[in-house]
Structures are given as C-alpha cells and as structure tokens.
C-alpha cells in the first residue's frame, strides 16, 4: 500500500511539473505496470468527436510496442471500459469468447489476462489504461488488482486533466499576449494627439482588445488637413486586419490625391480587389483648411456626421455613396460625391454607431439626441474639443460593463482657426503687403507668403489664380502693365499643369504660393502629376506662326527667372517663377 501511495504522489508531481505530457504518461504507465506486476501495458487517449471518436495509444510498455495504434472508441475491452466508465477484466483471455485473438496472432504475443480501467475526471472522459499478463502467481489478474488499477487510473486521469488545463491556459495566455501586441500596433496606427491648438481631435475605445474602427488625420504641405474616420463591419481580428489595410491605404493614397471623393473611390477599388467577401467599411474622408474654415467631405455609407454651428444648430450630413467594399461594377464606380462646408467657427463631429448605440445606463442608448446634448453641455462648460469627445466616450464606458461596440469620435473644431483668421484679417496679410510695397525686405519663409491656394488643376480654376496674382502683384507695387504680365505668366504656367502635367485623363490639385522674397515677387507652382521632362519644354520660335505653344514664351518673356525645382518630397513638379519688384 505504501508503494501505491508513493506512486500516486510521484505521478501527481510529475504531471504538475511536466512540459511534455506524452513522456510523463509513458513513465507513469511504466510505474503502474511495475506496481501491478504486469508484463505489459498501454495508455489510450480519446481523440476526435462524435462518430470519429477513437482511442489512440499514447504510451505502451512491454514486449510489443503498440504506440500510435487506434481503435474505435466504443469497441473492445478498452472501449467498453471507457463507455461504461467502469473497469473491465478478462481473467483468462485464451478461454474467453469475447477476446479477439487476431492481434496476438499478428504480434506473436500471448495474452493471458487483461485488466482495464477508465481514465476519467467527473464527466470528462480522457481515455483508458490497460495492463496485460500478471507476472506473479498464476499469471491472471484478481479482484484486488481491479481496485488498485482503478485507484491508479483515477489519479493518472486527474493529473492528465490538470496538465491539459494548464496547457490550455498557457495557450490562451499566448493568444492574449498576441492580441495585446496586435492592439498595440493598432493603437500605433492612430495619429498622436495634437497639441491643444490643433483643430482635430479623436478618441477610440475598442469593445474588445482590438478594434474595427479607426480615425486618422495628417497635415498636407499647404497647411490643409486630411482626415478620415471609418468603421469596419465586425469587431474581431478580421475587422482589425481590414482596418489596418484601409488605414494604410488612406495614408498612402491620401498624400497624392487630395480630393476626398476620388480618394474613397480609389480605396474602394483597392479593397474590393483583395478584400474578404461580405466585409465592408463605412468611411468618411475629408479635407479641412484651417486658413479658411472650408471643409470638403465625402461619405461612403457612414453614419451622418453632425455639423454643430456657432448658433447651436445641428445639421446631419447624410452618406452620399454606399460603403467601401461594394464592388465598383455594382455602383457605377464613380468618385463619392463631395459636400463643401464652411465651418465658420463651428465643429464637425464624425462618429461610429458605437457612440450613439452605446449604453449610458443598462439598456439605455445614448442616441443621436443624447450625443447632441453632450456636445452642447461640453461647449457650455467650456471644454476643449478633446475633452468634449472624451466625456462622450467616458459616459458610454463608465458603467463598467463590456462595451457593445467600438466607440470612435472625431471632431474638427474651427473655433480657434476662426480666431486666428480674424486676427490675421486685422493685422496679418494687409500689413505684410503694405510693408512689401513700401520697402521689400527678406522675411522668414512663413511671413514671405502673401497668398497660398490649392485648386483643382482645371481650366475653371485659372480665374481664381489670376485674381490672386493680380491682387498680390498690385499690392507689391508693380505697374498695371507689369501686373497684367505677371497674371499672364502665372496663368500660362498653371495651364501647362492642367494641360500637360496631368494631361487629359488624370486630374489632381495644384498649389500656388505667391511670395515676397528678398525684393522679388516669387510664385511657386506645385503639382502632383508624374514628373515632366524639363528638357522638352522650350519656347517656340516666334516667326513660326502656328496656334498654341506660346505659353512658355510668355512666361520667359515676363519673368526674370524660371526654374524647375525638385519637389520637397520627390513627387510631382515644382516651378519657381521670380520677378524683381
């Protein structure tokens, strides 16, 4: 009996310490067989489920190795023992009609006596253990042996079950850590919060570890800010991965195509090309110009953003196209229609349905009205835009319950930019221009800019460009004739962008920066089209009277310096025109 206890203790300790259950099972079987004075033994583990349930030998001891052998889970001595959750004994195999002697014929082993006990813990069936041929006495197992094997099997089963559970826990822990890593990478995809003066703020609270929502924003070369907020269908890892893909597409394509409607069209084309079926993304993309309060918005199937004006009115901006992920051939595939807004000191709230459908109290959704109410009370309390949307997210996650859905809110607040615009209107541009006309002087680059605008590279934009050049050149003190010349030269340069750089088939934006630099009037013209071969641009001979081709001649005639510069980030074309004031 003391041997028996010793074995129980030893087995339990081995299973608790082990990293290799198989090896431990093998050792346990050996010790059990020794203690039972058995010639051989085998340990079977239940595998599969339903009709495919089989008992597979995971450890074998004795003259014949049957490790790997598997038998139907409901047949034979082992199967019966497990099914009935009771020991089985074949006292005298050679004289037992139920014993199948074919195995012995194959292995050359003579089975005289078999004892089998189930491995089970409560309702969990694990397998069975069997020992064959008692070496002592008459070579047959007796009733005492049944009790002993049952006791040993019970503790072996418990040890195996514990070891399995520990393994599953460890596996879960690994999964949890991987999820954490995924979430960390996902958080890294969100933009870092801007300082208090930055007009865009966002908040994202995932319902699970990872999120299917995201927002992003970045400042373009001309000071405008591109932003997006999107909600991927679903909340799990697949949603998180599609979110990462869509977020990357926005970052990449958003820097070259600054028209939100076309950007969403391109993202849709990319997502549809490779996406999983049945997953889609509702997405808002836009461009906001803090220097004017103008905002261009495109909405692909997303919850209507709310425009909160300074007179405390709300306006919902409905989606103008189906979500991203709907194949272009079903929708016609054009750009998502754009809406132009003037924030005029107001704020635009973009949010996922997790924000409006979240519970503020058990069973009680915040709702669109609740959302508006929280915006109003936030404004009334003088909260910053970030604090306002944090308060909304807090109200939904404060109850301590698991969130129903990811919560994401983005706000574009024009209040501070409006103040800046008003200030500049008093003593900004006008003083600069006066100073420029009275006594040109070298200024820091930002002060040197008299007027910067970005317009679609289209013929219809040229009028606006001419107006800007006319106003600024007049303010710089050029004669009327010189002003007309400058207008013509810049117009011609912009025409070349419209006609030659982008060509007939593609379109994009062009940026015009009119500057006063060291006593010169400088115009920088920037586009994002493929680089133009500068060597091919040449003025035509004037005696060659043909239509067209005069533009470059005009530019060179009017300006002192015409140079093609490498663009700041290597993309597109940058032309610098200069004329002394």
């Amino acid at each position: 009996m003391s041997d028996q206890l010793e074995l129980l203790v030893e087995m339990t300790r081995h299973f608790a310490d082990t990293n290799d259950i198989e090896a431990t099972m093998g050792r346990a079987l050996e010790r059990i067989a020794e203690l039972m004075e058995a010639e051989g033994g085998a340990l079977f583990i239940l595998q599969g489920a339903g009709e495919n349930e089989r008992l597979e030998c995971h450890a074998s001891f004795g003259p014949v190795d049957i490790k790997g052998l598997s038998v139907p889970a409901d047949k034979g001595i082992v199967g019966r023992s497990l099914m009935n959750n009771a020991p089985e004994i074949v006292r005298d195999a050679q004289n037992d009609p139920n014993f199948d002697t074919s195995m012995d014929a194959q292995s050359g082993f003579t089975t005289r006596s078999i004892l089998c006990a189930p491995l089970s813990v409560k309702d969990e069936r694990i397998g069975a253990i069997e020992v064959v041929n008692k070496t002592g006495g008459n070579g047959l197992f007796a009733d005492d042996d049944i009790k002993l094997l049952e006791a040993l099997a019970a503790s072996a089963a418990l040890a195996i079950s514990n070891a399995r559970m520990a393994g599953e826990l460890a596996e879960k822990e690994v999964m949890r850590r991987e999820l954490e890593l995924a979430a960390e990478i996902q958080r890294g995809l969100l933009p870092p919060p801007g300082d208090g003066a930055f007009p865009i703020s966002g908040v994202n609270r995932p319902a699970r570890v990872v999120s299917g929502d995201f927002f992003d924003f970045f400042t373009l070369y001309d000071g405008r800010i591109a932003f997006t907020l999107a909600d991927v269908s679903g909340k799990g890892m697949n949603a998180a991965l599609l979110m990462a893909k869509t977020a990357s597409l926005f970052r990449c394509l958003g820097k070259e195509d600054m028209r939100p409607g076309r950007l969403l069209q391109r993202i849709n084309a990319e997502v549809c090309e490779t996406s999983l079926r049945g997953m889609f993304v509702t997405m808002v993309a836009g461009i906001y110009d803090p220097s004017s309060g103008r905002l261009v918005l495109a909405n692909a199937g997303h919850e209507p953003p709310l425009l909160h004006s300074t007179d405390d009115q709300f306006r919902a901006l409905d989606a103008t196209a189906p979500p991203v992920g709907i194949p272009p051939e079903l929708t016609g595939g054009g750009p998502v229609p754009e809406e132009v807004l003037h924030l005029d000191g107001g704020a635009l709230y973009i949010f996922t349905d997790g924000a409006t459908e979240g519970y503020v109290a058990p069973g009680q959704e915040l709702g669109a009205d609740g959302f508006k109410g929280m915006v109003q009370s936030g404004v009334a309390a003088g909260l910053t835009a970030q604090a306002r949307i944090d308060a909304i997210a807090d109200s939904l996650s404060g109850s301590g319950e698991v969130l129903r859905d990811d919560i994401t809110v983005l706000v574009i607040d024009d209040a501070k930019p409006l103040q800046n615009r008003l200030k500049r209107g008093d003593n900004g541009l006008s003083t600069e221009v006066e100073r420029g006309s009275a006594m040109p002087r070298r200024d820091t680059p930002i002060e040197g800019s008299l007027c910067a605008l970005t317009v679609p590279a289209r013929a219809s934009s040229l009028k606006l460009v001419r107006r800007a050049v006319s106003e600024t050149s007049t303010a710089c003190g050029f004669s009327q004739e010189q002003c007309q010349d400058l207008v013509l030269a810049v117009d011609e340069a912009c025409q070349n962008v419209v006609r030659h750089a982008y060509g007939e088939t593609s379109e994009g934006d062009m940026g015009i920066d009119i500057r006063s630099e060291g006593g010169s009037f400088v115009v920088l013209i920037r586009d994002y089209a493929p680089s133009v071969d500068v060597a091919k641009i040449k003025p035509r001979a004037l005696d060659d009277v043909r239509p067209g081709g005069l533009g470059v001649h005009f530019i060179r005639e009017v300006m002192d310096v015409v140079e093609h510069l490498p663009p700041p980030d290597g993309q597109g074309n940058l032309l610098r025109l200069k004329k002394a004031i």
Partner: protein
Amino acid sequence: MEIGITDQGGLQVVAISGEVDLSTSPKVRDALLGCISSGKGIIVDLSAVVYIDSSGVASLVEAFQTAKSRGLGFALAQVSETPLRVLKLARLDQVFVIHDTVEAATVAMA
C-alpha cells in the same frame, strides 16, 4: 466671356467681351471658325476683352490662317490695352491686321 456676331454688309463682326482663357477660348475658336465657314470676311472686335491668354491668342491665329487659306479677309479691331499687350509679347501685333475701329476695318476690307 460673351460672343456677339453681327452681319455688316458682307462682313461678319465678332465682338468678344470678358476673359478669354483656357476654359473659354474653345468657344471663341468655334465661333470664329463657324463664321469663316459661312464664306464671309471677319472683323474681331476686341474692345471689351479684359484678358486673353495664349490659348485665346492661338484661337485668333488659327482663325486668321483658316480665313487666309480661303481668301477671306480677317482683321482685329479696337484691340483694348490688355490683349494688345499680350499680342505684343507674342510679337503678333505685326502679324495681325489691326484697325482702330470696326468702321475703319469695314472700310479697309470693303
């Protein structure tokens, strides 16, 4: 930009006003070539043009060449200061026939 076409004793007077730029010059071109196809001489009144760019000038040049190849008269009249400056920049003030008034052009082309 607006275009007005009037018939004056066997000649067509095309009066252009406003800004002739990349977006409006195709209309100028179409109007001028349309008039030429009617087989009459053309006087282009530029008194109300406040801006013209290379694409506008190109339309004038193309119409001039087309008229010439068909043996039709083509003259500019009352060219205001801004378009004249552009024509001078292109050295085209010496290529086009330019009259001070529409009447003078009518007399000269009769």
